[in-house]
């Protein structure tokens, strides 16, 4: 599952919900634009931090001092060590769910960065280990194995550091997409949690043996402060913020509605929903507090814009967890973390938008439609007419908010869909394509195909928004 498991569903005629007989947010104001300024600022901060983390080495190392191969290897080992140490903190920070990160960068993008930085951390740590080993061995005329023994025996905290490397390799290995998808999600998640061990086990050796960190001074203090800041961010983002949110809103399941044979909508109510800072297209990580479900947390988009009476998520039943959701009793408490995501009208860069949704990927798009300025266009791909979800709401919105909607039905190899999702086809439907933001949400195949077509049609990458967690 590569995008929030938000699978769209239309409210069926005569559906039992009386919370809102029609989309409640027709009058939703268009949210103010959130430019990429915040994101760029944070990215610049993170990159500055990276440079700053190598700076102590640069200042400590006199020019011309690395004359032997061993010294050069050791120096490279130190650089990669500093980089790895810093990036590991960035890794954890990006997953801290800190509201400012979720708001400015967005969960989807953070997920992608986490993946890229993760691969880099793994390589940096392995490079650090081998370079230091080779460098020290060279400096002391030892064999690499002897030197490894010396490091483990004579240097403090090195056993832990080696263990940390082992854990990191395991975590990295299980994150390779093919292996990850072969593992049950919960097992994988548990293994991935072990990354915190890396932080813990790798902590000591940086200060007892790090050439730039062992001596008391601003560098050491700063490095420790960085650790403290990341731990604080973790506590704030993962404990304090959700606690506050859930104590304030106290969400409960109000109703479970079948949208189609394999799609359900959950209506949630709670307190002070009028003060919910939620944008259409954003998602929460949900935890349903029943015997079988409480320990799992899953991301689902909200499928209607914020209103002061209810929240709705629409879910396609694909696994055991989603199947369990069908049986939720009204009144069940819900623990939510969020909202997060930048797949919203607020993140548009242009006045008009083109939305491309596939199958159940309509959910966040449906919520967003309520908040986009008039004049948007929607291309909705579905395999069969029965797979079209929320069609009544969509038609209603099309009218109310002056939106063009094309339903493109058929299998991916049918000539119709192929024609529409080509650069020419897109241009024909939406002539001012390149001057619009494009929002994409759907199965990976559709997203990839559309992305290629859009890029070929000349839409700048910065105008394309993806609701996928990774790509």
């Amino acid at each position, binding site marked *: 599952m590569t995008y929030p498991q938000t699978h769209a569903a239309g409210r069926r005629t005569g559906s039992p919900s009386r919370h809102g007989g029609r989309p409640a947010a027709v009058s939703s104001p268009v949210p103010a634009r959130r430019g990429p300024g915040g994101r760029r600022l944070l990215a610049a901060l993170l990159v500055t931090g990276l440079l700053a983390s190598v700076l102590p080495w640069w*200042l*400590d190392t*006199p*020019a011309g001092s690395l004359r032997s191969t061993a010294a050069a290897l050791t120096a490279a080992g130190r650089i990669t060590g500093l980089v790895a140490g810093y990036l590991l903190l960035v890794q954890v920070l990006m997953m801290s769910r800190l509201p400012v990160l979720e708001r400015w960068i967005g969960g989807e993008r953070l997920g992608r960065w986490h993946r890229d930085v993760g691969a880099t951390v793994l390589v940096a740590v392995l490079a650090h280990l081998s370079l230091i080993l080779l460098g020290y061995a060279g400096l002391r005329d030892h064999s690499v194995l002897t030197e490894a023994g010396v490091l483990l025996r004579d240097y403090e905290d090195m056993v832990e550091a080696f263990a940390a490397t082992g854990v990191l390799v395991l975590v990295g290995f299980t994150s390779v997409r093919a292996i990850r998808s072969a593992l049950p999600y919960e097992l994988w998640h548990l293994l991935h949690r072990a990354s915190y061990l890396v932080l813990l086990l790798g902590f000591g050796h940086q200060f007892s043996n790090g050439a730039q960190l062992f001596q*008391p001074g601003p560098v050491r203090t700063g490095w420790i402060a960085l650790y403290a800041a990341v731990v604080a961010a973790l506590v704030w983002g993962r404990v304090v913020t959700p606690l506050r949110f859930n104590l304030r809103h106290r969400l409960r399941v109000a109703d479970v509605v079948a949208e189609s044979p394999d799609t359900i909508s959950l209506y949630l109510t709670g307190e002070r929903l009028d003060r919910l800072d939620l944008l259409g297209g954003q998602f929460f990580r949900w935890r349903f507090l029943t015997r079988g479900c409480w320990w799992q947390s899953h991301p689902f988009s909200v499928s209607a814009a914020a209103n002061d009476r209810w929240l709705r998520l629409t879910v396609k039943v694909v696994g055991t967890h989603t199947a369990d959701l069908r049986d939720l009793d009204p009144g069940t408490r819900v623990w939510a973390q969020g909202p997060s995501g930048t797949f919203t009208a607020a993140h548009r860069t242009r006045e008009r938008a083109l939305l491309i949704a596939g199958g159940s990927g309509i959910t966040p798009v449906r919520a967003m439609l309520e908040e986009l300025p008039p004049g948007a266009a929607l291309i909705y791909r579905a395999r069969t007419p029965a797979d079209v979800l929320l069609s009544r709401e969509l038609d209603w919105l099309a009218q109310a908010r002056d939106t063009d909607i094309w339903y493109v039905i058929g299998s991916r190899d049918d000539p119709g869909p192929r024609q529409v999702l080509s650069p020419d086809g897109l241009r024909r439907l939406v002539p001012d394509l390149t001057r619009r933001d494009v929002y994409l949400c759907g199965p990976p195949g559709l997203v990839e195909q559309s992305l290629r077509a859009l890029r070929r049609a000349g839409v700048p990458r910065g105008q394309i928004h993806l609701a996928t967690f990774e790509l």
Partner: protein
Amino acid sequence: MTAPLTRPGLRRVEHIMGTAISLDVADDLPDATLRALADDVFDWMREVDARFSTYREDSEVRRFERGELLLSEASEDVRAVLATCADLWGATDGFFDAYATGGLDPSGYVKGWAAQVASDRLLAAGAVNHCVNAGGDVRARGHSAFGRPWRIGVRHPWDANATCLVLAGTDLAVATSGVYERGHHVRDPRRGAPAQGLRSVTVVGPDLGLADAYATTAVAMGRAGVTWLDRLPGHTHAVVTDNARLLRSPTLPVAP
């Protein structure tokens, strides 16, 4: 660090004031006396560290800098040192500046001064043959355990394993200030920039605190420091420039 076969006296090394302090007493005195003398010296060094350390938050210098301690409330030692630093600031045309690094940091004088006081006390206590080395600032009096004048090497500026000059004498204060590693770390207080031109400056005189301060000053002055040293009464010098030339006073007490 060297230990000949048999010799009278005592040697001891301790790590105080962020550097290694070594004491060599060559007088043939009873063990207990020697031990007591050495204890006195190192107690004194620790006391100086406690008062003057810029790294200890509770030192008098740091408290004075933060305004928690009035000069009138400070110990006599601190007052005397700060007064001397002020005099040195005037005498060196502002090049010796205890505030060069931003905060108050009189360590360019204190280390040498502390060793000088220790040496004076040893002399007063009857140990006339001794050598105190406080992190490279040396105060030597009398003769070594071999019965010859103290031989003091000057560290080779490019090779920590070698010395580039040997001085000898029976009453010498030798201070060397240099830019050995980490690039330039002595700052020219008037420009705020790292000093350049002189790699290492050794000053020999009667008082180690002043010698230490003058050596630091000359490094901060750069090339101009050579002529400044030349005009300094009562002191001799040896200078190694950045491009590896050795310049020295004709009267420098070089070992025979």
